[in-house]
């Protein structure tokens, strides 16, 4: 029997339960993950392999040690430079265990080429720290005043930087008063001086509208004061007090912690001077434009009013005030003549009717027959008209009615109705 096959169990002691390999590995893993959740490691790359999957495997080593590293595809894709064996790098990641092999390894999520030096590392560490504290949060950026009345400048009182800035400010916007707080911009005391100057301007909220913290170009070491924590905090404090800060350190390519902390970063001090004030020539043009727009707007407003008025005047009521009345008169006239015509018509119709009746009556009158030369004859003393000679005898007295007047005559002879007329 092998001595270590079972744990020794002294008599009387409780039975000790053994861990499985998986359990032990899990415990180690937990320990490692907790202790090395986020570490920066520098070393040299070896055994660098890019897998088909896009994941990257390598070993990071120095003179006396090495550690296996994995970089997952997503992180590897973000690399801006080519990685190869022998390259000195700075990686960031967490340590964990790969249980199937029992290896601990570094899971890398970021990689930087080395040769950056300790300053860069310090910069990055401070950057991370301040970012976590929210110092660079975009929502904390205070907008610059459009037209500052008083501008604070924190910089060296000597050299080209302040001269250039004053020249540009004087040319672009001489209305602004400049308050300079001279400081040393490099060396041991620089960070504290800069920070204090910024705090001073922070106390002048309402008096000073904006502050520029500036320094000309130089080496990374020269610009270092602007990578100090106290300067970054002083910048934020000044801004929170109501005085926005523009950082203008070095050249275009130099980014400092102050640049990130400031409300606005200018690539150079000259650019800061350009951006902090409007240009008076442009402002004059703007004023001219507004002047024209004011005049134009008023003119069109007046024209509008005039058109409105004219549209009223064009209304018939104003143009021909008697028209309505005339129209009424005409209406009455029309009705009058209609009435007249109707009356005329009525009358003439009646007249015609009357004439017709009268002529019919006329035609039937016996007098009409007499008129044509006929006559009526009857025996005197009798009523009946004579129609035949048989009815009279010689010697009878006859009355003859003519159209005009009567005759009384005596019969001399009688011819029979059958005889021819003599």
């Amino acid at each position, binding site marked *: 029997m092998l001595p270590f096959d079972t744990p020794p169990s002294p008599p009387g002691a409780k039975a000790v339960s053994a861990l499985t390999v998986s359990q032990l590995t899990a415990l180690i893993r937990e320990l490692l993950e907790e202790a090395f959740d986020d570490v920066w490691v520098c070393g040299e790359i070896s055994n660098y392999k890019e897998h088909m999957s896009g994941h990257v495997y390598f070993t990071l080593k120095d003179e006396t040690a090495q550690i296996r590293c994995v970089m997952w595809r997503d992180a590897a894709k973000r690399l801006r430079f080519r990685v190869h064996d022998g390259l000195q790098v700075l990686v960031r990641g967490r340590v964990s265990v790969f249980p199937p092999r029992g290896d601990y390894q570094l899971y890398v999520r970021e990689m930087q080429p080395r040769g950056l030096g300790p300053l860069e590392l310090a910069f990055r560490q401070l950057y991370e720290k301040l970012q976590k504290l929210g110092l660079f949060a975009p929502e904390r950026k205070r907008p610059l005043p459009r037209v*500052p009345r008083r501008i604070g400048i924190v910089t060296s009182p000597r050299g080209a930087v302040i001269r250039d800035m004053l020249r540009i400010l004087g040319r672009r916007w001489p209305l602004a008063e400049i*308050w300079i707080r001279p400081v040393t911009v490099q060396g041991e005391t620089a960070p504290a001086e800069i920070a204090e100057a910024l705090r*001073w*301007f922070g106390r002048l909220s309402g008096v000073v509208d904006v502050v520029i913290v500036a320094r000309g170009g130089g080496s990374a070491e020269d610009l270092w004061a602007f990578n100090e924590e106290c300067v970054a905090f002083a910048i934020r404090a000044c801004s929170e007090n109501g005085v926005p800060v523009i950082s203008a350190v070095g050249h275009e390519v130099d980014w400092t912690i102050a640049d990130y902390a400031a409300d606005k970063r200018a690539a150079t001090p000259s650019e800061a001077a350009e951006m902090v004030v409007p240009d008076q020539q442009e402002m004059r043009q703007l004023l001219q434009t507004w*002047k024209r727009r004011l005049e134009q707007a*008023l003119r069109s407003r007046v024209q509008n009013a005039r058109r409105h008025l004219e549209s009223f005047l064009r209304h018939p009521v104003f143009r021909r005030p008697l028209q309505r009345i005339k129209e009424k008169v005409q209406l009455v006239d029309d009705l009058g003549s209609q009435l007249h015509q109707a009356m005329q018509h009525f009358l003439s119709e009646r007249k015609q009717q009357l004439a017709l009746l009268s002529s019919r009556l006329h035609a039937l009158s016996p007098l009409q027959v007499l008129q044509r030369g006929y006559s009526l004859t009857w025996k005197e003393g009798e009523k009946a008209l004579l129609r035949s000679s048989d009815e009279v005898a010689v010697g009878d007295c006859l009355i003859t009615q003519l159209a005009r007047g009567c005759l009384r005559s005596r019969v001399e002879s009688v011819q029979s109705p059958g005889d021819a007329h003599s």
Partner: protein
Amino acid sequence: MTADEFDQTLVQLSFEQALTELEKQVDALEHGQLGLEDALACFERGVKLLRRCYQLLERAEQRVQELVSFSERGEAVVRPFSLAEEEATPGRAANSASAAQSKPT
């Protein structure tokens, strides 16, 4: 605001305030539904603001001061600032800015 009241506040306006106010008048006149009388008043204010802006521009002369310290009352103490090459001249008279308290250096 009457025209007189407006004239009184006008002289106290900073350039930016005058500019912002001018912008408002232009906007109101261009897009507002102003009565004719209001439009005229608006125009008049705009012209006055323009004049104020031009006045400030014409009067402008860059003033550069150095922030020296703070007084007991918490007011900034400033003096005229000269560029490095002029600093050789001694016996510079101390001055104060309008918003600051005078204090000899």
